[in-house]
């Protein structure tokens, strides 16, 4: 009977494929081993840089991981994710990970990167530098320290002791009691962005006179930042400070150039120079933005901005210390515009800011190097007089591309003072005030506003500004364009894309991911648990078998205490 009916049922499935499909698919779905992800703990992780520049590949290739967490000191790391605190990670260990074919590396960074001790900071910066020198297949992630991450770290460290246990039995015990973690990053693999557009924002102030015949001063600052992890690159010193100075200079000079009242202050009633301000993109990638900008403007037949350039002033890292260095590729002639500007800088410093040390650093362009040292070299190559103003002594300083370069590392009052100094020097150049002694132009309503400087700095250094994350329509770029539009004329945003066939730079997606950590136990633990359960079940069985013993014992006690049953 039963079997006949079953046979009929099976015949039904044989006859029609869709029916069996509909019938079995839900069953397969239920049986399938993929269980819904019930997120245990989720935290943000920041992936290391990945980019192609001038044909070479840098940074880590992979992004998606699903593997067990291990201490970086454990012996077996193949296909596992090493978890380490910053101080544990050294280059030899990293290379060891690479040779072992480790799955991934998760570096736990201290929460406050600006309060590191000097040696810690140096360690981090040199690590960043070394990591970014080459390509690696091991995905490297950075996470900011949190209570939960510290717990994982401690557990993983303890789990490590199992590997070093003296006897096999102890190793087994420790691995059964250990708390393991499965680290999972899901989402899409990092992909190249071939259509990535870098934006340059330019604006100008025209002098009085026949515009084409006036020489031009170009003020340039690149707006992107770079650190080992794009999503952690806030770049407060390099180059939020330069941008803030540029914006403040634009604000001050726009008042001078448009407000007729300022002519009363100007004894010569002339503005001998045009001013061009440029916020260039891709500065950390061999100054791609300014490179393209120069090319475009040289090619342009009409309205050539770069026709008669007096000098190009690049601003980079101006947010701390009392030094101001003018980096040049070729020492400017004393009587040329560059020499005059340097002299003005010195004069203003002498009369108003005696604590500042102004110097000149001369470094020839090395055309053999793949990377240019400073932004002004882009202009110097094209035979323009150009120099970079910075508080740094050398372009080799790690400070310019580090995640330690955050808001707290920069002092807004230093930026304001430097802005004042540069503005005065520029004004002397523009109005040709050679022997004005301690004359100060930017006072009262024209003075540098500390609050404006600080607000800009907070905004710019509060957003990660790696080139990869600053798309041409991102909020920061739009805000900068608006700000330039407020002060300057002819504000334009020009976009540049890498060449399709021979791209100079390729950026990749995937700067920030969510990592899930699942608490897992090793397989030995399951076996151990199975043994315990078997023991428990055996006890239960014995108890049920011998239940009558308890039963009769209880009964006897009941009968002896109850007089009624005795009668019965």
């Amino acid at each position, binding site marked *: 009977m039963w079997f006949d009916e079953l046979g009929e049922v099976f015949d039904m499935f044989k006859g029609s494929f869709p029916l069996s499909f509909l019938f079995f698919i839900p069953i397969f779905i239920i049986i399938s081993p993929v269980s819904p992800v019930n997120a245990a703990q989720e935290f943000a992780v920041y992936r290391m840089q990945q980019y192609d520049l001038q044909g070479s590949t840098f940074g880590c290739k992979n992004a998606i991981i699903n593997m067990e967490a291990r201490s970086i000191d454990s012996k077996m790391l193949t296909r596992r994710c090493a978890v380490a605190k910053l101080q544990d990670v050294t280059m030899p260990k990293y290379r060891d990970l690479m040779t072992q074919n480790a799955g991934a590396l998760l570096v736990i960074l201290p929460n406050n990167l600006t309060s590191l001790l000097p040696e810690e900071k140096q360690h981090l910066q040199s690590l960043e530098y070394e990591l970014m020198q080459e390509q690696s297949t091991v995905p490297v992630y950075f996470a900011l320290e949190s209570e939960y991450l510290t717990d994982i770290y401690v557990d993983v460290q303890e789990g490590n002791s199992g590997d070093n246990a003296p006897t096999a039995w102890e190793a087994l015990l420790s691995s059964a009691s250990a708390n393991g973690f499965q680290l999972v990053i899901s989402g899409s693999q990092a992909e190249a962005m071939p259509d990535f557009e870098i934006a340059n924002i330019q604006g100008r102030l025209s002098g009085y006179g026949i515009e084409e015949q006036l020489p031009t001063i170009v003020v340039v600052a690149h707006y992107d930042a770079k650190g080992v992890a794009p999503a952690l690159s806030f770049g407060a010193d390099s180059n939020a400070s330069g941008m803030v100075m540029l914006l403040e200079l634009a604000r001050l000079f726009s008042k001078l150039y448009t407000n007729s009242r300022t002519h009363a202050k100007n004894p010569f009633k002339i503005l001998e120079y045009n001013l061009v301000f440029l916020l260039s993109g891709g500065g950390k990638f061999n100054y791609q933005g300014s490179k393209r900008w120069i090319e475009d403007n040289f090619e342009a037949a009409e309205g050539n901005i770069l026709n008669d350039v007096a000098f190009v002033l690049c601003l980079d890292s101006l947010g701390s210390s009392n030094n101001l260095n003018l980096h040049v590729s070729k020492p400017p002639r004393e009587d040329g515009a560059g020499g005059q500007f340097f002299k003005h800088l010195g004069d203003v410093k002498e009369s108003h800011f005696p604590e500042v040390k102004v110097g000149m650093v001369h470094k020839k362009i090395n055309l053999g190097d793949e990377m240019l040292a400073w932004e002004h070299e882009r202009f110097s190559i094209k035979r323009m007089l150009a120099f970079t103003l910075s508080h740094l002594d050398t372009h080799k300083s790690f400070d310019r591309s580090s995640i330690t370069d955050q808001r707290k590392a920069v002092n807004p009052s230093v930026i304001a003072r430097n802005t004042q100094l540069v503005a005065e020097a520029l004004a002397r150049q523009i109005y040709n005030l050679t022997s004005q002694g301690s004359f100060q132009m930017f006072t009262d309503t024209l003075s540098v506003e500390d609050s404006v400087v600080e607000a800009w700095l907070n905004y710019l250094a509060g957003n990660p500004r790696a080139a990869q994350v600053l798309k041409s329509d991102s909020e920061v770029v739009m805000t900068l364009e608006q700000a330039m539009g407020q002060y300057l004329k002819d504000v334009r945003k020009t976009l540049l894309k890498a060449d399709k066939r021979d791209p100079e730079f390729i950026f990749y997606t995937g700067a920030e991911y969510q990592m899930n950590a699942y*608490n897992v136990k090793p397989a030995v633990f399951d076996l151990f648990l199975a043994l315990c359960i078997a023991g428990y079940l055996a006890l*239960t*069985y014995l108890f049920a078998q011998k239940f009558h013993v308890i039963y009769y014992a*209880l009964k006897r006690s*009941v009968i002896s205490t109850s007089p009624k049953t005795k009668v019965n």
Partner: protein
Amino acid sequence: MTFFHFGNCVALAYVPYVIVYKCSGLAEYSAFWKCVQAGGAYLFTQLCKMLLLATFFPTTDAAVGSLDITGEFLKSTVDVIDLIGLHIVMSKFAGKGQLKFMIAGMGWATAELAVTRFIPLWMGARGVEFDWKYIQMSFDSNISLIHHISVAMLVWLYSRSDLQRTSLPIVLTLLGLACYRPLIVEILMQAVGLGSWMLLLAKAGFTSVVALISLQMYLSIPSQGTNSYY
């Protein structure tokens, strides 16, 4: 965790039921269909309870984590329907005297196990994340087996006419305790802050005490003294 872990949990949850079924003599009386009927009655009772709760008890907007004692108390009061359901099962389906409460309790507990425990285990114990709560859940199902059998025994005792008059208050008290067990557990969790393992232990102790007392009362009924199925 792995499928193996799921297997562990299922074994821990279900095997004691099989052992009790085999060893208590139910298997010899081929009481399987009776147990299934009791399970059906369980499902029907739960449906009635849900309808009642949804109709007459408004949802309270108590904040998560805080304890809404009156709401919980009312909800536990609805659990009295469970007792009525058990009583109906024993008076209608289950046949022979002392097997009655075994069948009713067993069927009731098994139905509850199948309905409320299997899906959480299936979804949870196979997940990547390891958590002790699935093992605890399996232990808890063992405890609830004893709990349901003893409740069935108490209901049966209550319906007996030859129960000693002096035992009646005890039976009623124990039934009340069993009924309001979830509430008591909740209060314990809030007030004492028991950890999950300690809570499990407390539940086990509480249940076994109730079970022992009811067993003793059962044995003190004169007609049960002689013909035991053990």
